[in-house]
């Protein structure tokens, strides 16, 4: 099953979870992510918008937003929740937009769930204007490479950090892929995106403060 198919199959579960306040990554990471973005009044493509929680927030902050997702169920619910918003069904690795269509592409907690994030990053670069920004948040690659051993108060890597490893995210029960940090950077480099900022958000509940749980990156298109 591709990631695209897997996400369509969990769309109802995801929506129930998100709309009952069960999305920890949003509660914890979204405000820090918004601070990373260049200021509003820009045209934004939100990549992997899901049911639209980030797009609605960006619109409220004053951005002109187009949300895109590969799941018909997600896009349908995003439209239902925000009838005035613009939501497009499409593949991040083959974006249905012309070159230089946006000032900003934002991918909040979605690249790690895509079949080909490097292709999605290159496509993002293509639809950005020169000087435009690409900002993304993912689960931190160190965090997805192992697990917390609570008894011994330590972090344990049993398998390979360097391999791409499909897994079900333990808390939210959704399909994701661990990839090493370099795999994202290869996409950025191929797309001609230069990284300005990397933020590592600390763990809060398990081994609090010791390990990075999310990675936020801002890059600029040359």
């Amino acid at each position, binding site marked *: 099953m591709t990631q695209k198919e897997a996400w369509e199959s969990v769309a109802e579960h995801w929506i129930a979870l998100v709309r009952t306040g069960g999305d920890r990554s949003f509660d914890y990471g979204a405000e820090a992510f918004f601070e990373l973005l260049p200021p509003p009044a820009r045209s934004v493509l939100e990549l992997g918008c899901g049911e639209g929680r980030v797009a609605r927030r960006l619109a409220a902050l004053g951005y002109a937003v187009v949300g895109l997702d590969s799941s018909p169920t997600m896009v349908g619910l995003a439209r239902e929740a925000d009838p005035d918003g613009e939501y497009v069904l499409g593949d991040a690795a083959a974006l249905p937009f012309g070159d230089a269509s946006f000032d900003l592409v934002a991918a909040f907690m979605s690249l790690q769930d895509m079949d080909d994030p490097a292709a999605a990053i290159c496509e993002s670069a293509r639809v950005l204007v020169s000087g435009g920004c690409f900002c993304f948040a993912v689960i931190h690659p160190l965090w997805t490479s*192992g697990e917390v051993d609570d008894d011994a108060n330590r972090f*344990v*890597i049993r398998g*390979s950090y360097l391999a791409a490893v499909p897994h079900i995210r333990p808390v939210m029960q959704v399909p994701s892929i661990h990839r*090493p*940090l*370099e795999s994202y950077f290869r996409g950025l480099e191929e797309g001609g995106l230069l*990284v300005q900022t990397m933020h590592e958000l600390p763990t809060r509940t398990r081994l609090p403060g*010791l390990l*990075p749980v999310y990675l936020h990156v801002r890059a600029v298109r040359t």
Partner: protein
Amino acid sequence: MTLRETWDAQAAEWTRFARDPRGDSWNPRFNLPRFLELLPPRGRRALDLGCGEGRLARALAARGYAVVGVDSSAAMVAAASETVEAVVADAGSLPFDDGAFDLVAAFMSLHDMDDLDNAVRETARVLEPRGRFCFAVVHPFVLPGRFESREESARFLIRGSYLDSHRRDDLVERDGFRVNFAAAHRPIESYSRALEQAGFVTERLREVRYEGDDSRRHRVPSFLHLRAARL
């Protein structure tokens, strides 16, 4: 003891280790070759920042780069000066004019410096606009951890903090060598912040993989290589 003092005190032993194939095998075998691939083609003038006994400067000179090394340790610089041009100075106060170089390369040295931010700021100052800063460090994801055993399936364990910067001492005694690989562990965000503050953007990041027979090490990255451009 500062990192600078620790490394200065073992300069002679480090020089012996670095120049003997029974001592340092990882760097000549795969770390240095990958790092040389990261560098831009030879240009006007290159600075080897934290040159130690001069292994990178020698490799650059052999490839036609006009290179000068700098290290805070007089003993290291004396060893490097046997084969390349090198000067004694602190990375946070470089004795070079603004824009004097088009390349600054720091091979396995940034984590041995006590003050990262000032070293990176000075690097930006001595680089011309669009000059490149390339560095290699022990990968920050593995520096604070270790394998639980020598078994092939051994788990890699991180005890304590990845996110807090802290000093680590790792005394290696083997084959008649005795080197303390003293280093400042810093999370990737610390490197990113230092680069951003100094006016750099990152154009390439590589997680360098171990090449060799210890199969445990094929599961974790060994080194982090990064190339940044000065705006």
